[in-house]
């Protein structure tokens, strides 16, 4: 019997001891210990919407919904995950994510766009996560030839006066040092540049300064580029920061000096590597490189990191990892896979925990239970996810043709809030993440692009009118159609009843021409508007 089960598991491609099964087994133990009842399994429609938003950054089209629901395979969820991972939309979405994570959404288009294109290639070819880090850390050449260079340019920080280049290097490089740790090691190293973290024996202020020195020999040379634009070339120049020294001030005012190094291993002039090479080699080998990525991905897919607090990048002793075994196993498998990001995503998305509903039961409703993952957290969508999903909903069959322009128009109407950095020791704070606010609501309720599409003769409403007619009979077919387009599910019986009830607000409003097609068309528009403005549309649940 056990043998048969094992064979079945192998056939399904999910051996009982694979990473997905391991996640589930570990969580099951925790649930028992914490007396948590897991949520129910998602419906197929819920799962399709969730995993599409997560992997390809948008809601599924009608065709994609049909294809999935008609798939008779027993493991169609697994097949779906594979299909999504292979889509070009996957590469586009993850290029979105990483462009925002690395450069920030507010980066100028001349940096963001080529950088995004470069990342798109990276994900389309499924290059390893290690390669991504190395290509960024060791980037050389001009911004025109090698878009990876933009990361250095964007995060080089304060310039040093030219007379001091030999002493301190060309730029302070503080944001760069801090940010690569945050993104790749899930550690807010930038916070220790001014002071040690309390209770943190490992990373100290000196370590930050020593690592920062490893970037002080990066030279930025402006080059005349195409047209009026000026490119920047990056190279290594031993004439910068020649002494390899950097002063830093303790908070008590004590002035100390440090030399280049990576967590205690020192770079010297005899080292047979440039400072950056020295850094990159150690950076990707360090245990936090794999663990950091697991932390980041887990947080992304579950809406809560593996440790106590919400944030994925707060790996200090004060914030213990709640599921150390999952962290260790996934990190080890990730290294074994050759730092294959898609493999890691596959393990997570194929776990049963990922496929649980977000509906709480009595045992797991509180925020403090979130870290046990006995239900999916309700997650907010980023503005890019919302914009791309709006493009799907508004353009219908023309999605492929119209998506790029529509998405750009929609995004131009809504930019997230920003806060300027308070001081030199902070990264420029930007937020590409969900910008849930009154401003998002204004955009969805009253943005001109959405309204234009709703009333356009080529728009979703006109199309529905053409197909089903603008009449009370048409309404009965239009409602399920609009629900499928926007929410990826059929209306409930109650919703159907409410929306077709002549007493519904629209009908009560004293409309005289309730039989006129114009009336029904405007009702369809309002219906579409209402669904796009529903919480269900703007959340991943």
């Amino acid at each position, binding site marked *: 019997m056990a043998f048969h089960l094992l064979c079945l598991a192998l056939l399904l491609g999910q051996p009982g001891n694979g990473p997905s099964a391991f996640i589930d087994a570990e969580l099951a133990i925790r649930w028992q210990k914490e007396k948590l009842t897991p949520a129910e399994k998602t419906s197929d429609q819920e799962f399709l919407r969730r995993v599409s938003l997560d992997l390809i950054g948008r809601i599924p089209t009608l065709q994609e919904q049909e294809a999935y629901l008609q798939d008779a395979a027993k493991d169609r969820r697994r097949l779906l995950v594979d299909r999504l991972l292979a889509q070009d939309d996957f590469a586009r979405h993850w290029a979105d994510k990483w462009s*925002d994570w690395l450069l920030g*959404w507010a980066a100028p288009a001349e940096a963001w766009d080529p950088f995004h294109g470069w990342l798109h290639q990276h994900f389309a070819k499924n290059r390893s996560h290690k390669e991504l880090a190395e290509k960024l850390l060791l980037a050389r050449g001009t911004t025109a030839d090698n878009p990876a260079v933009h990361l250095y340019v964007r995060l080089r920080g304060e310039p040093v006066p030219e007379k001091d280049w030999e002493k301190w290097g060309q730029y302070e490089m503080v944001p760069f040092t801090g940010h690569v740790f945050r*993104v790749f090691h899930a550690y*807010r190293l*930038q916070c220790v540049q*001014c002071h040690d973290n309390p209770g943190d024996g490992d990373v100290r202020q000196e370590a930050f300064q020593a690592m920062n020195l490893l970037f002080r020999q990066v030279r930025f040379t402006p080059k005349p580029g195409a047209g009026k634009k000026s490119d920047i070339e990056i190279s290594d120049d031993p004439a910068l920061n020649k002494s390899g020294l950097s002063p830093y*001030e303790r*908070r008590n005012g004590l002035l100390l000096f440090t030399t280049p190094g990576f967590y205690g291993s020192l770079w010297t002039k005899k080292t047979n590597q440039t400072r950056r090479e020295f850094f990159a080699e150690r950076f990707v080998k360090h245990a936090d490189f794999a663990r950091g990525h697991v932390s980041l991905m887990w947080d*992304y897919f579950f809406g809560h990191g593996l440790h106590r607090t*919400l*944030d994925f990048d*707060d790996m200090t002793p004060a914030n213990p990892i709640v599921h150390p075994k999952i962290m260790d196993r996934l990190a080890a498998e990730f290294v074994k896979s050759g730092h294959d990001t898609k493999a890691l995503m596959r393990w997570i998305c194929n776990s049963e925990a990922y496929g649980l509903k*977000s*509906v*709480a039961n009595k045992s797991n409703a509180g*925020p403090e239970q979130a870290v046990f993952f006995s239900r999916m957290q*309700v*997650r*907010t969508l980023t503005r890019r996810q919302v914009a791309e999903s709006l493009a799907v909903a508004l353009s219908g069959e023309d999605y492929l043709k119209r998506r790029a322009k529509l998405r750009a128009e929609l995004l131009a*109407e*809504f*930019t*997230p*809030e920003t*806060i*300027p950095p*308070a*001081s*030199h*020791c*902070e*990264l*420029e*704070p*930007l*937020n*590409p*993440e969900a910008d*849930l*606010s009154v*401003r998002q*609501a*204004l*955009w969805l*309720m*009253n943005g*001109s692009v959405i*309204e234009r599409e709703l009333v356009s003769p080529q728009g979703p409403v006109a199309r529905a009118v053409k197909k089903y007619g603008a009449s009370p009979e048409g309404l009965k077919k239009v409602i399920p159609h609009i629900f499928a387009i926007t*929410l990826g599910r059929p209306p409930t019986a109650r919703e159907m009843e*409410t*929306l077709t009830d002549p007493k*519904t*607000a*629209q009908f009560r*409003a004293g409309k005289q021409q309730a039989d006129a097609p114009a009336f029904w068309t405007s009702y369809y528009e309002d219906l579409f508007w*209402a669904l796009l403005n*529903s*919480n269900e549309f703007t*959340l991943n*649940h």
Partner: protein
Amino acid sequence: MLNLWSDRKTPACDGGTRRDFLKAGVLGMGGLTLASLMRARAQAAEAGQRTRNTSVVWLWLGGGPTHVETFDPKMSAPAEFRSTIGSVQTNVAGIEIGSVFEKMARVSDKMAYVRSFAHTNSGHGGGTHWVMTGYNFAAADNGQGQNKPGLGSILARQRGANNPETGLPTYVRMNGILGDGPSWLGSAYAPFDTGGNARNNMNLQVTTERLAERRELLRSFDSLDREVDRTGVMAGLDSFEGQAYNLLLSKARETFDITREDPRTLDLYGNNRLAQQMLMARRLCEAGVGFVTLNYGGWDMHGNIAQSMRQTAPAVDHAVSAFVRDVNQRGMQDDILLVITGEFGRTPRVNGGAGRDHWAPLSTLALSGGGLKMGQTVGESNARAEVPKTTPITPQDLMATVFRVLGIPQDLHYNDPTGRPTTMLNGGRPIRELVG
């Protein structure tokens, strides 16, 4: 939650409102319906009562503005301590301020400079948290999020997120500041941020009647089970939707449009970006906004402070003096309080790089209007502008003063996420010299 880059939400060493948002324990009013909004306005009008309209404009000099070169030049101190840029005599006998504030010097009879403002956290995160919320929070320097509500959010909770009469938000932010969020008061009381294209989206696309019908329709079905989520995400969304709706029905768009201002007033403020934001702040306050935060950064002057001051300060000098003149010309000096402050002051002794480093034991604070007593300095620093010589005035005292001006009861309290009634103030007293 995932938050690599962030806005106010997680600037580097600060935690953020994203977490505030998710932790939001208490969420108040969802949206008003058109009918209830109209009813509230009608009732207010019938009762003949103007909604309480005192406001605060909070000008934040982000980075930690030097207390010396701004409003306590201390020219009697030794050279390495006193203002590196000298001082200017104001129009109030005996009061000098930093030399670059020439225009403010001429309206100083309408200003008050506090020279004993002090706390003890010299970190950007912690210092900001203290001044913005009235409470120290050391962990803010280590990446922890705001754990107390900011002043503007407290007012939004107390007055409601929108002004019932005009529909405008109670709390508006022009550039974010760490610690300006609602923390556990709930995301419904977050500031309305004017950035991005928010203002364009206030151009109504359909008639107000149609918008109302659509909203009724949206509310007629429950598209997502509220039980799904008790973290506040959904309640927050509902509240945002309601606030957006109120904005669309209000005169918000006109209010945000400073070109509708009298040309002479526009001239007074000029082309200076900060000044235009302050003009907008005044327009907003007139229209019922209660709290406006404005961040004007660049004050972390570790090196060559004299040069930095000459670059950074003139815009403030111009904008503040224009604002003070304008408010007084309109006779609104009792209705609007301007607060100028930052996370801390700077080291009294100039450092080796001709700059000054972080120094909370003496911090920067100036005020104008709010019905407070102007044309004075409050408190006094010691001979080298190192610490207060008189009783220190704390962020709590500033908070209590702001409460007084805004008509917020000094004992205002709300239940924190554990259900414990928590007073907003803790020991702060309105600054005696100002409130008389």
